[in-house]
């Protein structure tokens, strides 16, 4: 019988004696480096810098009121200071006050939006051309974040449908895919766990709905940087993360786009993200919300209270499945 001899250990696999003896030192060095990094992260978290409300910008002209605005007696608009210091804009840092403190290098002017996909007018649109001849409206909307807080925000904007019509979409355009700018030179947020650039999407009928607006202003003034200047989406019956900011790309596509938060955790964040008190986030209830400035929580309303206008978009759909 042939007995095989075990192969020799290649010399390259033998641990150098020096390295072997230094393993303790290696553990100490690696441990020290990990500890230093960890303490750095922890230390930077104990910051005492105050959030800074956005400076007031240029007043927008010829802004008309809209019947889509909320009743301000029931839903009192939040203060400029709150709206411009309490932001989820991870490209500028993950804390609510980070964007207000780190948008200094961000330059939203000049700005170009690339339109492509299933449409006739594929072009790079300058912001001025998007706004040329476009009537602007005050749209005071309820804004519900997936994190259980909400605000009332006096946006200024115009229906997304106005812009889509100018792009002359083809019959293959079933969805709209939006992309946020990603430029680390202007956006100093460190790794947040999200994959950038940020992407969001809407079904074509949602995009064409009169409540869906492209936002260019706040409180009658040019939109502050931390709120997604110069162009952001507002879809008031959906959670805040659908309201994509600082849009640089609009594509008309045939298939449902994968949005950033869905990619991050598809069991927690879906494509539709309609506000729904009966469909919980896996880690917390969505039945109530804290309106910024209030102590007692409010009951969250289906479609954030816009059901009368938008419920028909989802007839026959299982909202638990399509969350």
């Amino acid at each position, binding site marked *: 019988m042939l007995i095989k001899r075990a192969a020799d250990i290649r010399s390259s696999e033998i641990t150098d004696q020096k390295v072997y003896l230094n393993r303790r030192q290696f553990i100490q060095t690696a441990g020290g480096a990990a500890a230093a990094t960890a303490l750095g*992260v*922890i230390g930077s978290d104990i910051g005492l810098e105050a959030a800074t409300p956005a400076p007031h910008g240029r007043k927008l002209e010829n802004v008309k009121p809209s019947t889509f605005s909320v009743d301000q007696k029931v839903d009192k608009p939040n203060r400029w*200071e709150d709206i411009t210091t309490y932001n989820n804009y*991870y490209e500028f840092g993950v804390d609510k006050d980070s964007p207000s403190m780190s948008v200094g290098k961000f330059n939203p002017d000049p700005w170009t939006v690339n339109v492509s996909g299933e449409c006739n007018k594929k072009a790079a649109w300058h912001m001025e051309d998007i706004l040329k001849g476009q009537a602007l409206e005050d749209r005071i909307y309820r804004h519900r974040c997936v*994190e259980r807080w909400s605000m009332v925000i006096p946006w200024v904007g115009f229906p997304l449908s106005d812009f889509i019509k100018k792009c002359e979409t083809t019959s293959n355009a079933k969805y709209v895919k939006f992309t946020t700018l990603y430029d680390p030179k202007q956006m100093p947020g460190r790794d*947040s766990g999200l994959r950038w650039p940020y992407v969001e999407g809407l079904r074509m009928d949602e995009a064409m709905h009169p409540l869906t607006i492209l936002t260019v202003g706040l409180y009658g003034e040019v939109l502050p940087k931390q709120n997604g200047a110069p162009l952001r989406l507002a879809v008031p019956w959906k959670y805040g993360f659908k309201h994509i900011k600082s849009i640089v790309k609009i594509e008309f596509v045939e298939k449902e786009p994968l949005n950033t938060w869905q990619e991050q955790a598809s069991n927690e964040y879906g494509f539709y993200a309609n506000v729904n008190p009966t469909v919980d986030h896996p880690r*917390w209830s969505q039945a109530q919300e*804290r309106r910024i400035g209030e102590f007692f929580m409010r009951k969250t309303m289906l479609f954030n209270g816009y059901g009368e206008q938008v419920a028909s978009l989802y007839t026959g759909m299982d909202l638990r499945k399509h969350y």
Partner: protein
Amino acid sequence: MWAGLTGNLSANPLSDLTNETGVWALRFICITLALTPLRRLTGWHAVIRFRRMTGLFAFFYATLHFLTYVIADRFASLDFPDGIVAWSTVRNLAKSVGEDIYKRPYITVGFTALMTLVPLAATSTAGMIRRLGGRRWNLLHRLVYITAVLVVIHYWWLVKSDISRPLAYAIVVAILLGFRIYWSWWRTRTAPAPARATA
């Protein structure tokens, strides 16, 4: 002092208060766990006198953290069918807290962590140390190793996407517990073999 400890409050101060009290509880757990290694590595024995105080600070912040959650999160989201000052409010609050602890894993873990701190705080007095005896007291207070791990898990499970902070605390806790593991291994290695009982 308060603003310094809690950072500057944002537009959502109740959420800030909940987060900051929780993070400070974890920081004090880490500081407490660091004192023994610090003493052994530097020979600075006086430092151990602060251990009871930092440990009680951890318990204090953990309790505040829990109370903030009970008031700002559970109480604030109740219905008050019989008005706020009523037995039904107490019942509903207890039910709401209980259900949340049962239903949401990160809250289950966080609550368990707080419960592990209760016996430690209760036996923190000199009288209790004497009554328990040093050996048993030491054994009981090793429970804080479990607390530290539970708190890191609690933190890790509640963040949305950015794990850098819970990861940082996980590294710190791992290193601090690593010292204990290393020492206990070293002790068993260098200790003389236990003498056999002879009949």
